[in-house]
């Protein structure tokens, strides 16, 4: 009987561990690590920017896998997980764009520098936000699940194409580039923050899947047997999966 209790607490545990790691990593990144030679203090933003980037892609990849799992197997839990992955991915992608903008201003003097990775993130953000909107506009759970799974697969397949096309397009105009490598002096805070956001993300996805699952269960619930036959206003979803 402790198992349901633990599984209920598990997401919060992940979140707490993640938050702790993030606080430590950020502290080290902000106050202990030395400033970078060329960029000065602004480089410290990388300690949150890079982990956010990794984890937003991870969340969206998870959503993609869940979409495949739903289309192939048909279990509702995969729809719930996909919904969670998309929402968490969108939140992190949004954060990524904001961070990228804040980084770009002091570095390049503009709020947006059309860096291929950042631009691809912006397109991703819009594509998956669109899928969230799609889910809001479809009432039937079966259709909603199938359609958003299809849309997720299509949007995810687009990611490398968007990246390469923006990279090509951008290379003809600019020679700037965001720093690719981080020298070893900065590894520790980067890694701590990466794991910090990873744990946060896992906790978020677990919580969010649970919310989605609960809503699905209430939508798919058969009406109680006590009601009369004439009371047939609600069409319960024909989810046979």
């Amino acid at each position, binding site marked *: 009987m402790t198992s349901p209790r633990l599984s209920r607490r598990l997401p919060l545990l992940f979140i707490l561990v993640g938050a702790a790691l993030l606080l430590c990593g950020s502290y080290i990144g902000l106050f202990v690590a030395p400033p970078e030679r060329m960029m000065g203090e602004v480089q410290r933003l990388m300690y949150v920017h890079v982990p956010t980037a990794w984890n937003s892609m991870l969340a969206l990849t998870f959503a993609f896998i869940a979409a495949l799992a739903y289309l192939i197997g048909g279990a509702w839990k995969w729809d719930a997980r996909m919904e969670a992955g998309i929402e968490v991915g969108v939140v992190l992608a949004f954060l990524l764009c904001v961070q990228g903008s*804040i980084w770009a201003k002091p570095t390049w003097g503009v709020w947006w520098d059309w860096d291929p990775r950042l631009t691809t993130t912006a397109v991703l953000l819009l594509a998956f936000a669109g899928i969230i909107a799609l889910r809001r506009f479809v009432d039937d759970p079966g259709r909603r699940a199938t359609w958003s799974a299809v849309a997720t697969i299509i949007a995810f397949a687009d990611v490398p194409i968007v990246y390469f096309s923006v990279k090509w397009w951008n290379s003809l105009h600019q020679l700037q580039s965001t720093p690719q490598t981080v020298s070893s002096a900065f590894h520790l805070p980067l890694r701590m923050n990466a794991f910090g956001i990873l744990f946060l993300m896992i906790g978020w996805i677990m919580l969010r899947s649970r919310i989605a699952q609960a809503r699905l269960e209430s939508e798919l619930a058969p009406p109680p047997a006590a009601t009369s036959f004439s009371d047939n206003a609600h069409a319960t979803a024909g989810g046979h999966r």
Partner: protein
Amino acid sequence: MGTITGGWGFVIAGYALTAMVLVSYTISLVIRSRVRFPSPEGEGGAPAPGEGSRADRGEW
């Protein structure tokens, strides 16, 4: 060498915004996970997320 003016301001802005987004999303998730979804008949008492939901339904 190579300092960028206003560096710390941007760093603080970036970290602060990050913290704000992370904290508020976490709080919103925790709040939403406590909300009970109405059953199709509009009665209260829909299963809470997590444990025992399917068992509860059998009692109807």
